[in-house]
């Protein structure tokens, strides 16, 4: 049924429909609405689940690690400093091979305090072993959360479903909320591959000496590679039931493009408008939207980008001393291709600053007019007088 709901609540609805059994939550703007709704569902019986109002995000993740180890479906959600506080447990959850799903709302890291959107919080967790899926709007967030459980339980890795602060989390949009029977058809009852059991005692997450540690890490990477292999098949199954699919990445008007703009998150919607306008002016420009960042679909990206002349990557994030994080990863995906485009890196929209259609047009013409990219990322819309 189509309903007008907040992006945050699109994720809450998906967790409800996934028949999650244990939810731990701690409030942080702009994530709070996700867990608020879930605590209501647990209280009023719309969910048969336990909600644990923990005392920190570190404890939220520790709590769901404990619960998931017993072989039940779990959920938590966080943002920004909450995610940073969880960092230790993100490693723990992934290497425990627990299929935890977490809603993550991209918010800037302080100081200064800033509650608005910025991807640096989740990208700083890229090496923890979590699958990361970036969503453009509320419908995609709902669909991706349901899909995340299917994926997580097949590969035994945790999944982060990521939306932009406010632009998605607090924006009301028409969203098709599926029927429970449809979700049940796509997402079967959870059958854990392992669970703590007093009838079969073993130790989980115990000391791992050098003779075994490397194989344990390799097994996480093999699960990441399997994720790339099976993602399309899971989307086929999803499409069969719900009629929608997104792809690990999406190419828009790229067939004859000379320049492709790489985007992620809600800025992609703005970029779609900018590209429509540029196309009307005769500019040969397309979009590559990245949804899956971990595992990084390097081969697909290289195939999609290697024939184009120039690529402009728009990063709403930054790695100090290096550059935009998507730019770095795309460059590394392309570096061994015989034929590869010039990659131009742009930093825009940090800490919730608007990325408008004009921002994308400026980025497009800047890329078009430059003969070669600069080594460093170019910061868009910087007020030099404030530096």
């Amino acid at each position, binding site marked *: 049924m189509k309903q007008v709901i907040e992006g945050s609540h699109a994720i809450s609805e998906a967790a409800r429909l996934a028949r999650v*059994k*244990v939810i*731990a939550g701690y409030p942080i703007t702009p994530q709070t609405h996700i867990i608020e709704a879930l605590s209501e569902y647990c209280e009023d019986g719309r969910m*048969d*689940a*336990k909600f*644990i*109002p*923990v*005392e*920190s995000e*570190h*404890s939220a993740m*520790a*709590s*769901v*690690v*404990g*619960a*998931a*180890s*017993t*072989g*039940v479906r*779990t959920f938590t959600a966080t943002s920004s400093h909450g995610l940073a506080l969880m960092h*230790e*447990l993100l490693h*723990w959850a992934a290497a425990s091979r627990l299929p935890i799903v977490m809603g993550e709302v991209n918010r800037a890291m302080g100081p200064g305090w800033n509650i608005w959107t910025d991807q640096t919080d989740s990208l700083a967790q890229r090496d923890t072993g979590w699958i990361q899926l970036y969503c453009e709007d509320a419908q995609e967030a709902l669909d991706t959360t349901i899909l995340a459980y299917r994926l997580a339980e097949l590969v035994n890795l945790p999944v982060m479903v990521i939306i932009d602060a406010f632009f998605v989390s607090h924006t009301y949009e028409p969203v098709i909320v599926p029927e429970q029977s449809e979700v049940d058809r796509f997402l079967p009852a959870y059958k854990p591959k392992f669970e*703590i*059991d*007093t009838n*079969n*005692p*073993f*130790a*989980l*997450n*115990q*000391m*791992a*000496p050098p003779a*075994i540690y490397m194989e344990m890490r390799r097994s996480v990477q093999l699960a990441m590679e399997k994720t790339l292999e099976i993602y399309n098949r899971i989307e086929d199954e999803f499409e069969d039931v719900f009629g929608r699919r997104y792809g690990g990445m999406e190419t828009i008007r790229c067939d004859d493009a000379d320049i492709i703009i790489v985007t992620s998150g809600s800025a992609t919607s703005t970029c779609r408008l900018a590209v429509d306008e540029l196309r009307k002016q005769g500019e040969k420009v397309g979009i590559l939207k990245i949804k899956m960042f971990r595992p990084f679909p390097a081969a697909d990206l290289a195939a999609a980008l290697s024939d184009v002349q120039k690529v402009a990557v728009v990063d709403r994030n930054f790695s100090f001393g290096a550059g935009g994080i998507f730019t770095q990863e795309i460059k590394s995906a392309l570096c061994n291709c015989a034929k590869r485009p010039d990659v131009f890196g742009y930093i825009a929209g940090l800490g919730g600053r608007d990325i408008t259609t004009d921002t994308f047009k400026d980025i497009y013409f800047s890329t078009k007019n430059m003969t070669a990219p600069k080594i460093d990322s170019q910061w868009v819309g910087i007020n030099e007088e404030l530096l």
Partner: protein
Amino acid sequence: MLHSNIADQTYMTPGNMSCPGCGGGIAMNLALKALGEKTILVIPACCWAIIAGPYPQSGLKVPILHTVFASAAVTAGGVRAGLDMKGDTETTVVAWAGDGGTFDIGIQSLSGSAERNEDIIFVCYDNEAYMNTGVQRSSSTPYGTKTTTTPGTGWKKTRKKNMMDIMAAHRIPYAATANIAYPDDLVKKFQKAKAMKGGTRFIHVYATCPTGWGIPSEYSVKIARLATQTNIFPLFEVENGTDYTLNTKGNRPAEDYLNIQGRFKHLAGKDLKQIQEDVDRDFELLIKKVGH
């Protein structure tokens, strides 16, 4: 023949990695005898994360979920929630942490879990310093102790944190001290805690560390007994945060306990006098709380 409430059945294998005379090992062996096979242990970083053994072996015959240093209580609460949703009400979930994972880095999640009255038993096996990392001071380290981070004349000048008062202030159903030198009392308290399902139960176990305390391993139980006989570690229970019961009353001077341990050997007469005054004042306070 001596009558004892201690079961013959054991859940700890001889091949574990504890040091000779380890009080933490004795504590675990006794605790599991009381708790039985329907027990899940949650162990954060601490000596027991090592003692239990490396992959793929285990030194215990009950399941263990190892978790991060700060998170013993809340991970155990998560396990409990998962079991509850599966309809398993029989299994006892036990967080088993050292003093660092209880008094210091673990206190936030312990306090949060106790305030929520999570249905777990939290055990602190207290060896009064960070022993697994090589004897660094913790907030459980008593006044007067020399550790590797309170060396020389910089021996610890502040007092041990009163964890039982903190837990009692949470008004949890049950909090108790126990001592490896009093096995019947220890086992009785674990059995009682197990039977009191439904809320947070806290057991503070005195656990000697010959390696960190500078004592011969064969003195492990003797020194533990002296801790209670000198009232330095009194045995008592607190129900619902206010109802105190004293289990033993000591009458020996603190010096009997202090003088035979390497960690205290630098203390002068005035320091020992100070410690005796502190012990006496604390014990008086406890007697007042017991009320009889």
